[in-house]
Structures are given as C-alpha cells and as structure tokens.
C-alpha cells in the first residue's frame, strides 16, 4: 500500500475505526516507518478530531417540552412529513400492507389506470369532435325519420292539411 492510499484511509476508515483488523495492522506498520503519514495521523487526531470530542453536549431546555405539547394540542394544524419518508417508501409501505391475494388485482388496476391516463386518446380533440359530429348526425337522421311520417312545421300543416 503506497502513501497516497494510506492517506485516504487515514482521513476516513482508519481514524473512524471502520477497517478490518488485517488492514488496520498494515497501516499501523506503515505509520511506524513513514514520518509523513505518521505526521498526518497526529494532525488528524489532535487538530481535527480532538476539538469535537472536547465539547460538552447541549441539552434541550425544559420549556421545549411544554411548547411541543402546546403545538400538538387538538385542533392544531398537522405538519406533513416530507423529509422522513420518500414517495418510493410510501408506495412500498402500501404494497407491503396489502394481503398477497389483493396484490396482483391492485397492481393490475394501477397499471390500467396509468395506461388510461397516459393514453394518446386522452384529451384528443379530433376524436372528441368526431364523436360529437356522429352524435349530431344520428340525432338529425332520427329527427328526419320522425318528421317524414307527419307534419313537421306549421307551413307544412297549412298547405297539406
């Protein structure tokens, strides 16, 4: 292992105890022989890691619990959880909650709805106008058929009656 690779591991897995024992010993051996890498390790531990360990933890003030209780009182508007669960997770949760027997029909229904919603016939102006024209034509023809058997207008009634 060369110094470049050792430096990479020093800044991450070695300093964070994420390495397997064999690799850790290899690096330790290298550090005992390489002043440059040993210097980096010392710098990391003293200047970069130690300041974080030395600071005491903050504790939430007691009034926060009261504020939270007030915030979740009945009638208070609920906050939508957007950070915690992704859309993919939500779909997964719904699918897992379904009984196996219902899973296939539900998935089939979802696919059919998705196909219908994305169908090229949806919002097709040409098809809509064609259906409208055909409907008018049928209605008009039916109307003619009805009028052919009788007197459709007041003028016809005047001359023919």
């Amino acid at each position, binding site marked *: 292992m060369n110094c470049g690779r050792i430096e990479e591991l020093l*800044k991450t897995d070695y300093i964070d105890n994420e390495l397997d024992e064999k690799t850790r010993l290899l690096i330790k051996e290298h550090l005992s022989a390489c002043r440059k890498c040993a210097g980096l390790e010392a710098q990391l531990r003293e200047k970069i890691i130690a300041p974080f360990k030395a600071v005491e933890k*903050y504790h939430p003030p007691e009034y926060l*619990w009261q504020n939270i209780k007030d915030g979740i009182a009945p009638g208070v508007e609920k906050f939508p959880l957007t*950070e915690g669960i992704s859309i993919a997770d939500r779909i997964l949760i719904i699918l897992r909650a379904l009984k196996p027997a219902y899973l296939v029909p539900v998935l089939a229904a979802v696919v059919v709805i998705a196909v219908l919603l994305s169908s090229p016939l949806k919002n097709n102006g040409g098809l809509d106008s064609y259906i409208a024209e055909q409907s008018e034509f049928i209605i008009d023809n039916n109307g003619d058929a009805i009028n052919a058997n009788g007197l459709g207008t007041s003028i016809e009634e005047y001359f023919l009656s």
Partner: protein
Amino acid sequence: MQDIEKDTIVKAAGGDMAAFEEIYRKTSAFVYNVARHITASAEDADEVTQDVFIKIYNNLGGFNFLSSLKTWIYRIAVNTALNHKKASGRHLNRRADYDITLKTAAAKEEAKDNLDSQAKKDKLRRLLDALSSEQRACIVLREIEGMDYKEIAAALKIKINTVRTRLKRARERLINLNKKG
C-alpha cells in the same frame, strides 16, 4: 440515543402523551444537539426541535417499523435542521445586524462562564463554519454523536461511500483551515 420499545411507539401513535413524552425524553438530547450544531444557533435549535417532535407525533401512526425509530428520528432531525439552516441562510443579510446584537449580548453573558469551555466552543464553531451543510451533518453525526458509517448512511439516506467521501473532504478542508492559522 436510548432504545424505545415497540409498545411505547404504538401507544404514542395512538395519542398516549405519557408514551410520547417517554420518546421525547429518550431522543430529544440527540435532536437538540444535532440541531444546535447544524444551525449554529440556540434559537434555531429550539425551533427545529419543536418542529421535529411535532412531525414525529403527527406521523407516528404511519411509522412502519421497517427501520428503527432511532434511524427515522435521526433522518427527520438532520433533514429538518439542514432545511432550517438553508431557509435561514436566505434571510442572513436581513438578520445580520440582529445577530450581531444577539452575539454581543451573548458574548458578554458567556464571558462570566468558563472561559476554557467557551474557547473550545469557539474553535468548534470555526471548524463547523468552514464546512458545507452536508459535510457538517456528516461530521456532527460522526464526531459528536459517535455514529458509524452505516448509521450515518441510514440517517441521511445516502450510500456509505458518500459518507466516506463527505468525511474525507470535510477533514481535508479542516486540515487546510488549520494550515492557514
């Protein structure tokens, strides 16, 4: 963070305030500490902590037990704190004078406290300020909360290699900061 029993979660999800308070008592130190370090402000940490626990309460019913409650809370806490920091960053210029006044008052007050402790906090603040929000979240979870790579990856919903990369870049930046003085 202490472990929380399933029974407590179920009771809290059903509106049992005593059970919810137990969850709060066991997890609020983590949430507040992370919020305080990510936002760098006591007032913002208060707001983030309140927001996080109201979200938890309102959404416990939808908790699916696929991950641990701790991981779920880690994720909500870190994301809420990061979002809060981004949002307050947009108002930074307008708040600048107000913040200076607050910091001056706070500094005078803190001067009465332990000077050594204050120096440590100042140093920590300088280090964290040098990092991006994502790097800062990784460093806080690793160095202050002592979480391992797997836990950080689960909390931030990122790959372990991304955790590794963010920590490496953060530490390189901190080394450069130290070199400059």
